[in-house]
């Protein structure tokens, strides 16, 4: 054979061998199907996929971002079909009872142990007192309430928080620190203008700054379903009201009376009256606002205060999107010091409480790549990230997870604008959750629709909550938490007629 021919043959053989090697490598990689919410923070996670694949060369990610309206349906379809198309699934935190209760997702404890992390269930300082499940799950690097609210189902760990969220009080520092405003406020209300710590002060401040159409005291929402129910309970919990007699725990399988609705308690009605009254200090139309519209008002300088999820700070502090960037302060939600002392378990009169929102990741029980799926879960929850990797993730716009030390990295924007310290305090002491039932989505629609009806004046607060209680009773019967032959009664065994606990 001529040397040239030999060269050509050698080259062809070399290319073929190379292709074979690459194909072998690709085939040797495990493909992990991931479904994530179509949200800014998750774009960042997707964009960091190459770094993950560099760290774990045997894993190839196949990330699918899906809109909120479709994600639950897609996930349920995959669970029902049992295909295991998605190995790692991101879920809104109230879906845990639905997913874990039906056996759709895998227990993560074996993986935690395999990773050498010390998971304990003998944690003594329960989170927040009175609302813990038994046992409380403890992982040294994680915020205990967040980990348990997101992942604890029946005392076992099923989910890891990867995009938690909680509402904060956003306020305009430029208005609150203005000397003329301070003097005028003190003259009108007889006490100094400060960031409100009680709902009474909050109402006064909001009223003071309401100067339509240019400025309103507050922007918030009573939009149908999710918006109305979460915002209303952020008020109602301070009043000592809750939706179901079992409060923040789980339905009682032994006594259906504890699963009865109590949303129409006098405390609940009083809280709803207050919530509806806030309409007078808010821009017109908030009765139908979505989350983004609340932020639009605030960013446009149209409101002195806003109650909003923590992850909207990204938009508020972006000068390209916001007129109030750099002028905004963050605080805890107000409380009600004169609330009855013995009301909802764990409520301390005077403290503010907010609904825990945000998303967690779970492992599909039908996943065929559990080992690789776990590696991604460790990454996406920051649990197995190094501190420098996490810092980098937060710097480029990633979101904080349930990992404690992430809230103390001083170089990150969240820390600089004062978001992280407030957010961490909310997570540690001030979060509440929606009922831990599989039918949580329906609960939001039932109570959220009735709250909205009261807010827009279609019903009185009492009528709206009575109707909500009737519908919640039917839901609890449908869900099997209350037997069919058990009539709707006030759970006097557990809750006093005024709503206080026995």
């Amino acid at each position, binding site marked *: 054979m001529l040397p040239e021919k030999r060269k050509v043959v050698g080259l062809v053989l070399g290319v073929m061998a190379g292709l074979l090697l690459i194909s072998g490598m690709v085939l040797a990689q495990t493909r992990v199907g991931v479904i994530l919410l179509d949200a800014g923070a998750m774009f960042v996670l997707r964009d960091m996929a190459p770094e993950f694949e560099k760290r774990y060369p045997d894993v190839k990610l196949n990330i699918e971002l899906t809109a909120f*309206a479709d994600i*639950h*349906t897609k996930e*349920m379809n995959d669970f*029902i079909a049992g295909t295991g198309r998605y190995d790692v699934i991101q879920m809104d935190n109230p879906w845990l009872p*639905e997913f874990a*209760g*039906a056996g759709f997702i895998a227990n993560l404890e074996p993986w935690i142990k395999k990773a050498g992390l010390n998971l304990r269930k003998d944690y003594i300082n329960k989170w927040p007192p009175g609302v813990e499940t038994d046992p409380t799950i403890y992982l040294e690097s994680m915020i205990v309430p967040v980990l348990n609210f997101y992942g604890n189902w029946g005392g076992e760990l099923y989910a890891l928080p990867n995009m938690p969220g909680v509402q904060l009080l956003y306020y305009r520092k430029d208005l609150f620190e203005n000397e003329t405003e301070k003097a005028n406020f003190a003259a009108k209300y007889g006490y100094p203008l400060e960031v409100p710590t009680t709902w009474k002060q909050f109402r006064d401040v909001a009223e003071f700054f309401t100067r339509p*159409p240019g400025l309103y005291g507050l922007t918030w929402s009573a*939009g*149908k*379903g999710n918006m109305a129910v979460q915002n209303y309970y952020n008020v109602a919990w301070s009043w000592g009201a809750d939706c179901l007699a079992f409060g923040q725990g789980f339905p009682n399988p032994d006594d259906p009376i504890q699963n009865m609705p109590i949303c129409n308690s006098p405390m609940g009605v009083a809280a709803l009256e207050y919530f509806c009254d806030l309409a007078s200090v808010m*821009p*017109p*139309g*908030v*009765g*139908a*606002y979505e989350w983004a519209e609340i932020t639009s*008002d605030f960013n446009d300088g*149209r409101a002195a205060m806003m109650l909003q999820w923590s992850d909207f700070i990204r938009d508020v502090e972006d000068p390209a999107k916001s007129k109030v960037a750099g002028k905004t302060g963050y605080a805890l939600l107000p409380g009600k010091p004169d609330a009855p002392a013995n009301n909802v378990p764990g409520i301390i009169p005077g403290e503010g409480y907010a609904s825990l929102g945000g998303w967690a990741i779970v492992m599909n029980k039908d996943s065929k790549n559990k080992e690789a799926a776990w590696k991604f879960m460790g990454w996406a929850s920051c649990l197995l990230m190094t501190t420098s990797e996490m810092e980098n993730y937060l710097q480029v716009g990633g979101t904080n997870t349930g990992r404690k030390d992430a809230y103390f990295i001083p170089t990150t924007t969240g820390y600089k604008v004062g978001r992280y310290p407030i957010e961490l305090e909310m997570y540690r002491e001030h979060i509440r959750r929606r009922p831990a039932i*599989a*039918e949580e*989505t*329906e609960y939001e*629609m039932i109570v959220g*629709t009735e709250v*909205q*009806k009261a807010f*827009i004046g*279609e*019903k009185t607060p009492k009528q709206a909550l009575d109707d909500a209680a009737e519908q919640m009773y039917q839901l609890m019967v*449908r869900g099997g938490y209350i037997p069919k032959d058990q009539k709707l009664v006030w759970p006097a065994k557990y809750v006093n007629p005024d709503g206080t606990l026995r």
Partner: protein
Amino acid sequence: MKKRKVFYIHKLTPYFMILPAVIVLILIAIYPMVFSFWVSLHRWYLGRPHLFPFIGLENYYTLIFKDSVFRRAFLNTLVLVGVCIPVEFALGTMLAVLLNRDDIKGKKIFRVCLIMPVVITPVVAGVLWKFQFHPFYGIINYFISLVGGKGIQWLADPRFALPSIMIVDIWQWTPFMFLVLYAGLLSLSKEPFEAAKIDGASEWQLLKHLTIPLLIPIIVVVLLIRTMDIIKVFDTVYVLTRGGPGDATEVLTLYNFRVGLNYFYMGRAATISWIIAIFVILLAQLFFRILGTEFYKKRT
């Protein structure tokens, strides 16, 4: 014997020929319909998919007699049909007759402008109108303020929310009515009209005694299509109000979506689908009875 075999094969050939189509029809239409009816007779919650108890007509009974949201959704859907279809038809007919006149100039520009709303995806139309209805940034309240009026909370006030949905639907689908009726007008023979004009018929007489009777087959079809469409309206309502405020804009398909794909009560969702189907069939029959009589008489 051989002759007999050939005879049978020959006789059965047509059946073999249509067999693939029949199989496809069974798989994609008949089986799902029968299955969905079967599901409607059961309590089936996908959160506990293994439980599938037979409950007879309980789902139908509960929805019709005990579910106030369903009843409101049904009523709202009826109101949408009752308001939007006549308005769209009246406007569509007026536009079609107007543009069919020979003395109108710039017809092409009008036609293009009128077609535009139809080609917009309903979701996009919903988003666009959500901005128009915004209390601060919307153009509608801006114009109201120019004449000294007070802004309206279009989507947050139960008195205006359903009319807002109607406005969007009429804006988007009147052009469809216009297009079909205009095409029908263009296809009509000119001779009867010329003869009637020679006999001294007025414009109104032409419209009443010639144009509309001749267009009846087209009118029946376009009304039927639009009625079925509006009963299925989902995207616009979902984007604009999500059925709110309260239950003010709850419609059948949105409620069905929520029950089936948000709450995963498949039995109840299948029942709603069947109620919608029966409702559409009855309405279609009604149309044919009222409007189609003349058409059928002519045909027969």
